[in-house]
């Protein structure tokens, strides 16, 4: 493995009685497009929130390009971009205003922020809607706007939480191509998802999280171990009982 971009050691978080994240360790090489997969409630969002400085861990350490997120948050946050699972956009700003605002928050000069915002809007296929309020954007447009906001300061590490959830195939393709291009230039992406086909298709590194613990990590080929990622994931996480015996009437049109 080359230079480590994301280094996580012994990360823990509990909410009341529930141990949401139970001492995870993770090493993601620079230039990787890494996936963090797990069932609902496995601890993906909590882990990503702690890695990005938005949720204080109970224990553990997170280094981004060698910068400690919790000891030197100013420096660490300057090199990361985040696309959260839920829209965290200012609904009453237009798309153009939102991107420019993001650029200015990250310290870009006004001209540079404006110029990058325009380029990103073009690339993300949002130029025609640049002056519409975010409040009136569709889910896909919001995801793309969030991605633009996360990229405008050219971070070296990008975190995405369920980036393609609720996104149509066309917008999804735009996001996929942008991520591939981003990592092609040596930057790093870590994203969470439970869409195995997507992870298998574009990720070179996969970590599987279940009940707050990393149960498998490595290159995509190592983790799937000759199977599809979907099958490997089900084997790791365990199938769930279906209890379909009681639906004998289903499929009958008589009543």
């Amino acid at each position: 493995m080359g230079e480590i971009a994301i280094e996580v050691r012994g990360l823990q978080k509990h909410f009341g009685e529930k141990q949401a994240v139970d001492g995870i360790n993770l090493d993601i090489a620079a230039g990787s497009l890494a996936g963090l997969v797990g069932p609902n409630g496995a601890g993906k969002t909590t882990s990503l929130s702690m890695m990005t400085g938005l949720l204080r861990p109970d224990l553990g350490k997170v280094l981004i390009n060698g910068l400690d997120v919790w000891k030197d948050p100013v420096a660490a946050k300057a090199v990361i971009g985040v696309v959260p699972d839920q829209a965290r956009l200012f609904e009453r700003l237009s798309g153009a205003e939102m991107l420019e605002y993001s650029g200015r928050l990250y310290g870009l000069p006004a001209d540079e922020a404006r110029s990058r915002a325009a380029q990103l809007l073009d690339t993300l296929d949002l130029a025609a809607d640049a002056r519409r309020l975010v409040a009136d954007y569709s889910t896909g447009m919001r995801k793309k706007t969030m991605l633009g906001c996360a990229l405008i300061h050219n971070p070296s590490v990008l975190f995405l939480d369920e980036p393609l959830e609720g996104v149509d195939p066309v917008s999804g393709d735009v996001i996929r191509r942008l991520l591939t291009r981003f990592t092609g230039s040596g930057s790093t992406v870590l994203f969470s998802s439970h869409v195995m086909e997507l992870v298998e298709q574009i990720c070179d590194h996969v970590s599987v999280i279940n009940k707050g613990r990393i149960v498998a990590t490595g290159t995509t080929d190592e983790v799937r171990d000759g199977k599809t990622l979907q099958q490997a994931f089900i084997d790791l996480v365990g199938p769930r009982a279906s209890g379909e015996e009681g639906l004998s009437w289903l499929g009958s049109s008589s009543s």
Partner: protein
Amino acid sequence: MARLFVQLKLRQLRNALIGSTAARVSFIVSTIFAVLFAIGTFIVLALFRGTYSVELTSVVFTSIAFGWLFAPIFAFGLDSTLDPASMALYPVRTRRLATGLLAASATGAWPLANLLGQLGVIVGLAHGPLGVPVALVAVVLEVLFCITLARFVTTGMAGLLRSRRGKDLAAFLFLPVFAAYELFAQVVPKLASSGKLTAASFAGFDSWMRWLPPGLAAHAIQDASDGHPGTAAARLAALAAVVVVLGWLWIRSLGHALVTADTSTQSSRVRGRGRARTALPLSRFGLRGTLAARTWIYQRRDPTSLVFWGVVVVIMVVVSIRLILSKSATPSALELNLVVSGLFGAAFVGVFHANPVGLTGPPFAFEAMALTSRRQLRAYFSGQNIALCAIGIPLLVAISFGLAAWAGHPMFGFPAAAADLAGLGASLGLASVFSVAFPYPMDKRMGSPMLVAAQGYGAYRFADILGGIIGTGALCSPVIVAVALTNADPAAVRMPVLVVCSAAYGLALAWAGVRIAAIAAAGKMPELSQIAIHSKV
């Protein structure tokens, strides 16, 4: 179908009692208010006997109908049976659906309270052998009118109320309702105690209200009681016809609403600027300017912010109006009253903006990714304050001078403006500190256009309000003392000194608040972010 819908409504009401604490409290409080409303209305209507009883009954009936007209706009979302779109998937004909929805509307504490309360006319306006039976029919028709009116409005506006713009409209309606309430609470008792508002005053209202459906009901009771059954029957027939027409219109609009797409969310664009120019003009003034630009845009585009400013204006007017109207206040009392009015207005500017973390909601977490150092956080708090002052200073000063001119002492606008400036500085300074000391998530309850503190955080909101008002008053006590002690000095010397010193004092207070808040926030940005993420705005 009617039975099914009534059962659905009853189940919803029952579920409110086994749901969350907030839903339970809300249901119980609503029911208590309904009972109080019924008792109050019954007593008031029962007291209307003799001269002007029909005029007063008309006014009460019309007021209740107006209440039903506006209630669905605020209550939309409380009762899922109200939204025809939720029924669109079921194979039910419009007429049967309408019957069911109407029956569901008539079920619950408020329709019952409406019916029982209005029966007070049997004791009041109605008398004689014909009066009471006609009153019973009139009250039933009046309640049916209220329900069909509410249904018609709700269905007609259902598409709009599901959209962002409809909810914005509902937020704006809060302002006239608040202003009307405050005016009523302040002015009506004053006018009544001074003898300017008597039962005879309502005779004028009745000259046109008698032709409205509620007026028809009241006058039908009067006619029957006075031995004119023909006129009473004609009035009741007219009222019944209105109810039928309204019901027919409602069924038509229901049929239309079930198959019409909601186009009201198709947005307009923000005001056009060429792409060569910046979307955030103030952002060229660094991080502080960027934050000010965002806050400024929100103050213009967010209806809640606009409503907040409207409430500030109403509060300032209400604080002064009694003394201005009394015409017997001494000049020094008037001057002090205008100063207090300015301080109240300024205090509420701070109170409304004392929780930017919760008010901003999840987007605050987005800002938190970029704001970490004390310098950045000073820019964050001061940028917001600059935008608020850009609106608050001219607005508060204009209101103060307007009130002073209305009171007949335009020069009193200067000490009031001094209080505005010092008060704004104090309240915004306190708001900055409170925003870090007592941050709490906000919630948008179903059916309410205004934000409230999330469940369990009511005490924080209370602390914000009380702390903001008392704190602003305490911090500005030097200004009040200075105004009181110098009122014998020449105005040419006194006014500029008061205004300039108060502005400097306010600036110092605001700056101190920003510095304290930035130091405190730097150590707890993750915690603030979590509060913001849990805000449902």
